[in-house]
Structures are given as structure tokens and as C-alpha cells.
């Protein structure tokens, strides 16, 4: 059937990614039989949840042809502020902490959005500047000190260590975010229009889509998710520092790229993103299991991203060439 064939070709990339993940998993399993144990899988997923949450926001930003380099700083700032509040008011309910972090992140994201959507500042410049401002603010509000485990209430730490239906709450949160995001990008008009804006900004303007609002929204959502991730991060590691999550934005962007999100805008699927997150988690968490030095991690990540990007280009060039041959002039 035609529809089935289209679905197959449209999901070829994800299929390839899945096969690659399985092969990689098998390889690791052969080298270290402890890999496929329940506890290891759980810890892998727990460690990857925050990355996944952030990747969802980054996907939206990348779809609009933007980029957000400020999220590492937002994580640190929102995490720091909520940790300081908890240290001051130990009785604060955990949900309120989450709300606080998200609110802070959303506000910073909105600032990014205004710079990019309203003032047409290059996304890379706007968010690079914001990264510095927010990172600096983190040090300023904390006076350069850490907030450590003993200053945090058990309730706060349980945000990341507690269990919901017997599953780690981080994983539950990530799944929750993925479900909401799935609904948003696939079933709401606004979600689809974000794709339209990234796919062809001029056409979007001519056909009267609220281009600026949509771009603004993407950065605001990114900020909100980064704020949420900040609280989760601090709760998970039970410490808030000035240099929390420094450079983490690169890992998030890398995850999106591995997941098939195009930096040129308009393209990106949640299914691919989930696979990309898992692959990245695998690279991060399983390499030590097969005795790869942690110092090799960054290099391997970088090479993987570049290989993925270049492979994409090569495939695209090939299909274009075939299409030209078919024109039969």
C-alpha cells in the first residue's frame, strides 16, 4: 500500500538508528555481561532522563532554525536558586521547587526568544551572551559558594531519587515530558506551525502564520524545560555549584543531531529524538563498562556527531543526484 511505503521510507533513518543501537548494545553485552542487567538499564535511563528532557526543547529550537547555547547556564541558575530556597525554607513542597525552577527558566528563555524573534539577533550570538549573563548570575546569587547535600531537605532530594509506581521519578518525568511533547508537536496546530516556520520562513510569513510568536514560544519552552532540568539536576547530584552543567548544551545539541533533527530547520521527529537520547546515553554510560577511558568520551562524542552529520549530507547528495538523473533531460 502506498501509505505504508511512505511510512517506511520516512522512518528509514530511525530504523537505521535502532539497528545501530541494538548492535552497539550487543557488542557491549559481549564485552561485559553486566550491561543488560535490570539495575544497569535503570541507571542508564535515570542518567539519560535529564538529557532527554532538554533534547525535547532543543529540538523545537533547532526546528525553527535556531540554537540555544544558554541552557547549561540556565540549569545551573535555576538549580542554584531552588537549592538556595530549599536551604532557606526546608519545608517547601518539592512541586513548588519544580515550579520555581521552571518559572525562572521560562523567563530566561523568553528573553532569548525576544532577542531572536523580535530583534533578529543571530540565535548563536543572543544565547551565547545570555549564557554568560546567566552563568555569572549563578555565581552572584550563590556568592561563589556551593549548596551541599546536608543543606537540602529529604523531600527535595526525593524529587530525583524517589519512585513513582516503582520507577525512578526522573524516568517518569522524562516520559511525561515526551508524552506532552508528542501531543504538542503532532496534534496541535501550534506544534505543526513551528515545523512550517522552520521549513520555509518566507512562505510562513506570506501565508500569515505568527512567525515571531512561534519562534519566541520555542525558546520559552526550551527555557522552561531547562529550568525544570536544573531542579532535577541539583536534586539528583544533591549539590548546586556555580559550574553545574557547564558545556552541557553541546551534549544536548549533539543528542538532537544524532536523533535526526536538522540544524537547518524544519526537520525533527520525537521517535528519532528518543533513539538519539538512548544512543547518547549508551555512549556516555556504557563506554566505562567496556573499559574505555572516560577521557576518550568527549572525543568519541565529537566524532560520532560529525560522522552523523556528514553521513546525512552524503545521503542527501546521493538522492539529489538520482532525482536529477530521473529528470531525463
Amino acid at each position, binding site marked *: 500500500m502506498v501509505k505504508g511505503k511512505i511510512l517506511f521510507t520516512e522512518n528509514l533513518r530511525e530504523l537505521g538508528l535502532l539497528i545501530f543501537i541494538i548492535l552497539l548494545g550487543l557488542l557491549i553485552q559481549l564485552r561485559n555481561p553486566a550491561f543488560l542487567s535490570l539495575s544497569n538499564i535503570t541507571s542508564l535511563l535515570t542518567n539519560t532522563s535529564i538529557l532527554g528532557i532538554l533534547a525535547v526543547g532543543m529540538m523545537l529550537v533547532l526546528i525553527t532554525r535556531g540554537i540555544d547555547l544558554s541552557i547549561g547556564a540556565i540549569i545551573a541558575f535555576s538549580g542554584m536558586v531552588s537549592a538556595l530556597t530549599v536551604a532557606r525554607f526546608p519545608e517547601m513542597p518539592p512541586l513548588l521547587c519544580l515550579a520555581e525552577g521552571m518559572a525562572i527558566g521560562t523567563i530566561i528563555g523568553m528573553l532569548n526568544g525576544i532577542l531572536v524573534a523580535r530583534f533578529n539577533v*543571530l540565535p548563536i550570538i543572543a544565547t551565547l551572551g545570555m549564557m554568560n549573563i546567566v552563568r555569572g548570575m549563578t555565581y552572584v546569587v550563590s556568592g561563589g559558594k556551593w549548596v551541599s547535600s546536608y543543606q537540602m531537605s529529604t523531600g527535595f532530594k526525593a524529587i530525583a531519587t524517589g519512585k513513582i509506581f516503582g520507577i525512578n521519578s526522573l524516568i517518569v518525568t522524562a516520559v511525561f515530558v515526551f508524552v506532552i511533547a508528542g501531543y504538542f508537536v503532532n496534534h496541535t496546530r501550534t506544534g505543526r506551525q513551528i515545523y512550517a516556520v522552520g521549513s520555509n520562513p518566507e512562505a510562513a510569513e506570506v501565508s500569515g502564520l505568527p512567525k515571531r510568536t512561534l519562534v519566541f514560544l520555542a525558546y520559552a519552552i526550551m527555557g522552561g524545560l531547562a529550568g525544570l532540568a536544573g531542579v532535577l539536576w541539583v536534586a539528583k547530584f544533591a549539590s548546586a555549584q556555580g559550574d553545574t552543567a557547564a558545556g552541557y548544551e*553541546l551534549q544536548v*545539541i549533539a543528542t538532537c543531531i544524532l536523533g535526526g533533527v536538522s540544524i537547518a530547520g524544519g526537520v525533527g521527529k520525537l521517535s528519532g529524538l528518543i533513539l538519539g537520547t538512548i544512543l547518547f546515553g549508551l555512549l556516555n554510560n556504557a563506554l566505562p563498562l567496556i573499559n574505555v577511558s572516560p*577521557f576518550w568520551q568527549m572525543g568519541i562524542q565529537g566524532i560520532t556527531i560529525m560522522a552523523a*552529520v556528514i553521513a546525512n549530507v552524503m545521503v542527501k547528495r546521493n538522492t539529489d543526484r538520482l532525482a536529477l538523473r530521473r529528470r531525463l533531460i
Partner: protein
Amino acid sequence: MSEIVENRMNTKPNEDLKIRIDRPWSWKRFFFQWEWLLVIVLLLVILINSLLSPYFLSLNTFISTPATFLDKAFIVFPMMFVIMLGRIDISVASTVAVSAVIMAVSYNMGLPMPLAILLCLITGSLGGAINGLLMVKFKELSFVIITLSTMIIYRGIAYILLGDQASGGFPKWFSFLGWGSILGVPFIVICFIITAVIFGLLLHKTSFGRIVSGMGFNKMTCEYSGIKVNRVTMIVFTLAGLMSGVTAVFLTSRMGSTRPNVAMGYELEVIAMVALGGVSTSGGVGRIAGPILAVYIIGYLSYGMGLANLQAPVVLVVIGLLLIFSVLAIRIRFSVSRKNSAV
């Protein structure tokens, strides 16, 4: 008609032309320049600093103090070229790290120090050349993705080579590069001035500089006009790598040793200096004086905040704000001047 070009030496300059070829002087244009604003800001910074500390206003401040902030300033010039091309290279800080690490490791493996320095510069240039090559070979990819990947890879190589250790033990004379002075002027300052002059001449007096600006405004026109656009791109990115190597040498000399996480965040400071210097991020526009002034503004600003016992993080905030405000101001300024010229 190309004999016009060949015989231009024989043509008398007083030949009657209907079109004027001498540049009319305009006071408005002379004073309506971004650089004057920067001069005022620099004077303000110096004024505030001297209010903060009575010892600030001394000859020393203007001769020796720059040595504390000039290490990264070498990258400002090639970054200016990169941004004039309409691109951004965010891998420079990682290039600094990998060059510095390779210099240290090769020295400790027995390479003589001068050769180790040479190797450092070569590594930097190679890093830049790889960026350039990727840009030229994969035109579909944006500069963001390319320099982002190499940023991770270069930093990753530094970690692979050195783990989390520091490496140093350089010969005594090596510290001269960062700390020594000739006739009372710090060596690093002399090098900075020489670099500034070279890049200034390159930008304003050579065909290369002209082409860089042209490609930033409209690359396609340059291509149609028979400009070797790929070669220019390669050269500009290689220069960015080379100057990152130079920064690596001075930084290592000042610190005495190196680690894989050196120069973190330098790319931002450098980009901020270039943007503050009036170089438009949409490409084409840029004059050498602006970024030089910006280097000194940001440098004295951080120095002054040190005097005022403000924490270093405040400097981060200020640099970030400066970056965003200068980009906004330049954007508004150009939209105004474009409107005026369209009438």
C-alpha cells in the same frame, strides 16, 4: 576596453571625467562612526577605574597592565575576519587547548622547546584548516554545526592526550614570552601591536581584506566575479587556528603549565570583543580600530572590577550584556543608515 586597466599608468590624472573620483570630505561621516563611541566608553572605563583606585592612573597601567588580558586578544583579529565572512568560529578555545596540550606533551616527550612551540602553531593552523576544509567541502552544513563538532573533538583530543592532569616544567626562557619585557614594554604587548598592524594592513590595504569584506556582503557576487572564494575561506579559518596557537603559547607561558580545560569560554569573550568592535554579525562590515578598542575596554573593565573587589563572575555578566547590547545597537544603526541611503 581593458586597455584602460593596463594603460592606467600613462593616463593623466587631470583628464576630464564627468564622475568624481576624489572622495568628498564629510564631517558627518567622520564623526558618525562607531569607533568614536568606543573611544568615549574606553575613557569612561578608565575614569571610573581611576576613581576606584588612586594608583590606577599611572604609566604602568597603560604599558604593563594590558599584559594581563592580551593573551586571548590575538584571536580577535582572525575572528573578526571570520565574522566579516558572515560566519562564527566557536571552536577557537578548544583549538587553544589542544595546541597548548600538544606543545606541553611533545616538550615533555623530549622535543626541544622551540620545536614544541612550532608544533603548537602548526597544530592550531591545522585545526583551523580542518574547519575551513569542512566548510568548503560540505557547503550544505552551517558553520554552527561544523565548528560545534570540531569544538568538541579538539577539546576531546586534549583530554585524550592529558587526561585530567596538568603538564608543565617548561624551560625558564619560555616564561619570558608571557612575563618578560623589552625596554620596559611587555613582550606580549609588543607582539599584540605587531599583530594588530599586520592584520590592519591586511584588512584595509590588501586585496585579500577587500575580498573578505566583499564575501561577507555577497558571496555569490564574488564567485561570479572570479574570486577564489574557497581559498579565501580556507585562509581565514586557518588564520583563526594559527592565532589560537599563538594564544596557546602566551597563555601557557603565563600560567607555567597547561591542562585540557584551559581557555574555557574564550570563544565568547573573543566574539564579544569583535561584536563590540562594531563588526556586524551579518557580515561584510568591519574596521580594525573597533576590535582593538573593544579589547582594551573589556580588558580594563575586568581589571577595574578586580580593583573594586567585584567577583570575577560579574565580569561574565557584563561581557554578556555588552555582547547583546552591541549587537542590538549595530543592528539598529545599520537599519537607520540603510533607510537613509534608500531615499
